[in-house]
């Protein structure tokens, strides 16, 4: 889709250039009190999104992707708690320090969210037109009629046929694909600078998924917003993003320009993920697996969080937690292999099918 191969924006630290990044997460930590202790769902996450770019955030279930998305808009409450010292800056403004009212002015207005399950994310008892108009009226002092008109205009823009009639319908009267279009219309009606799409197509069929992705790309071109695309589907990331961050255990474990990442994964987790996916283009006899499973967020292992499942792990990994290390310019990985590349040999067997 976004065939224009703009050069991947490297994660340059702010201040080098005068330009302030659109979104900047520094040491984001989110905890949830749970029965067995405290779940550290997001645990020291750093992420940059520049204006207009598409960034992919991938990772398996439970690694903290959704919590990150919600934490940006301070929506993890009442259960979740964003730790002291975390910082979420939108164009330099610290969102975590904003009073409630100003925070509300950001939500849906500067930063909008699209969720995974459009049926449950839309209010079943309100007409879709009203749900969109409501977003307009929350941020702009316009009349009811104007808001309504804006909603219909937006519905037309996301390709909903007969928008005027559809606006009077309820979510359950639409198909899954149409509902997701409605969600997108609702998110974009205030022309946000950043759209966070949390698995926007996971609940949809591949053919519908293709439609929605096409639509998102087109709208991004038209409206020029940045997109943070959260997904566990590596294929999607490959096709739609310019930069990718891979999450594991509440942290970013690898971050790179998309092509660079798929060409040469630096982190063993990314490598494993790529090897485990059945491929349409190149069928293989046997899938490579990542042994074991993700540990619960209440008890991350010491050292590198991935080490119990890592085929290359050695002593250092068990005790010392690696920081994000620069493997190549703009390509960083949270793995000691970056420092000791020679150890990239498996004890038991040679690495599986190489990507």
């Amino acid at each position, binding site marked *: 889709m976004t065939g224009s191969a703009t050069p991947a924006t490297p994660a340059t630290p702010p201040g080098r250039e005068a330009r302030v990044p659109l979104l900047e997460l520094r040491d984001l930590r989110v905890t949830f009190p749970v029965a067995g202790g405290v779940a550290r769902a997001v645990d020291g996450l750093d992420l940059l999104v520049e204006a207009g770019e598409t960034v992919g955030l991938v990772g398996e279930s439970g690694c903290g992707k959704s919590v990150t998305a919600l934490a940006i808009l301070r929506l993890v409450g009442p259960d979740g708690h964003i730790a002291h010292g975390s910082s979420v800056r939108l164009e330099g403004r610290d969102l975590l320090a904003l009073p409630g009212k100003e925070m509300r002015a950001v939500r849906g*207005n500067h930063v909008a969210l699209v969720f995974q399950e459009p049926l449950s994310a839309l209010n079943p008892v309100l007409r879709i037109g009203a749900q969109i108009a409501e977003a307009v009226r929350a941020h702009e002092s316009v009349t009811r009629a104007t808001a309504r008109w804006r909603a219909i205009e937006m519905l037309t823009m996301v390709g909903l046929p007969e928008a005027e009639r559809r606006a009077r319908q309820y979510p359950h009267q639409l198909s899954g694909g149409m509902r997701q279009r409605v969600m997108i219309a609702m998110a974009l009606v205030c022309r946000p600078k950043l759209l966070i799409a949390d698995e926007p197509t996971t609940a949809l069929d591949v053919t519908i998924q293709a439609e929605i992705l096409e639509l998102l790309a087109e709208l991004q071109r038209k409206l020029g917003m940045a997109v943070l695309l959260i997904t566990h589907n590596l294929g999607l990331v490959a096709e739609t993003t310019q930069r990718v961050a891979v999450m594991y255990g509440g942290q970013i474990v690898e971050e790179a320009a998309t092509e660079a990442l798929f060409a040469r994964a630096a982190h063993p987790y990314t490598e494993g993920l790529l090897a485990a996916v059945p491929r349409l283009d190149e069928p293989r006899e046997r899938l490579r697996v990542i042994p074991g499973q993700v540990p619960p967020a209440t008890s991350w292992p010491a050292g590198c969080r991935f080490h119990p499942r890592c085929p290359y792990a050695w002593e250092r990994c068990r005790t010392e937690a690696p920081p994000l290390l620069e493997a190549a310019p703009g390509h960083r990985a949270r793995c000691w292999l970056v420092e000791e590349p020679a150890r990239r040999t498996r004890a038991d067997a040679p690495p599986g099918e190489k990507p």
Partner: protein
Amino acid sequence: MLGFLARRLALAALTVLAVVTITFALVHLAPGEPMLGNAERMRADSATIARQRARFGLDRPIATQFAFYLANLARGELGESFVRHRPVALVLGEALPNTLLLGAVALAASFLLGVAIGSVQAARRGTWVDGVLSIGSLACYSTPSFWLGLVLLLVFGQQLGWLPVAGMTDPAAPEHVGPLGRALDVLRHLLLPAATLALVNAGAIARFERGALVDALGAEFVRTARAKGLSPAAVLVKHAGRSALAPVLTLAGLSVPALLTGSVLVESVFGWPGMGRVTYEAIFARDYNVVTAAAMIAGILVALGSLLADLAVARADPRQRPDA
């Protein structure tokens, strides 16, 4: 829609028939003599009683009596009250509107109150406000209505003297106060009994509303609403509240029996001229015709309550509508 109504009406008719049959059997098979006039002043000899029994057809076999009763019922005749010497339709017809007024006001009030309390609790869940209101609504729900009624009467009627303690109107008031004056008079008399019924019922509704709201607040669409930048109040009322409405409406419709029960007790405490009292007195006088008809009306009200609840739910929840 029509088919639905027809089915519900058929079910309601079945219910009413069951109620009539059960009640009829119950009162006629019970030991004891119907009072055939109030025995306060009557010491009737057996000949008199026999004459009275013949007059009301009580000397015939019960099956025959039931057949006659059903035949009369089919013609819309409910018979005559043994004690009041008046057509049952009149006796109950005069009392029913009063009970309906009391019940409807209590239902509406308990609904509003319950929803309001439940909403505050849900909005402040986990805080001391929630705790206090929780205990309060549970206590309301666990308080016998007769007890609550007496206490309200004592405090607001007698001690503070704010409201009249009994009756539905002030019969001594001048006649020329006009319709508004009369309505106000009724309203003043209505407040205490309605509050009694409403408080007990509101306790149940508040507990339910809180649960439904907390569930709704955990739903994803609420997150969507917050992500849009809506204020917490708008999220609570418009989004969570609207979707929690349907189950609470159902509960409200299903609380008709509880209100009827309450009305038996509350109407005697507050001297409200309603159906509960008439029925209660009729049961003790073995005024068969009144008891049977009253049970039938109660059955109709209960069936109507659940029907209205279903219709209200269909209004509140578009997923339940015919075009769905």
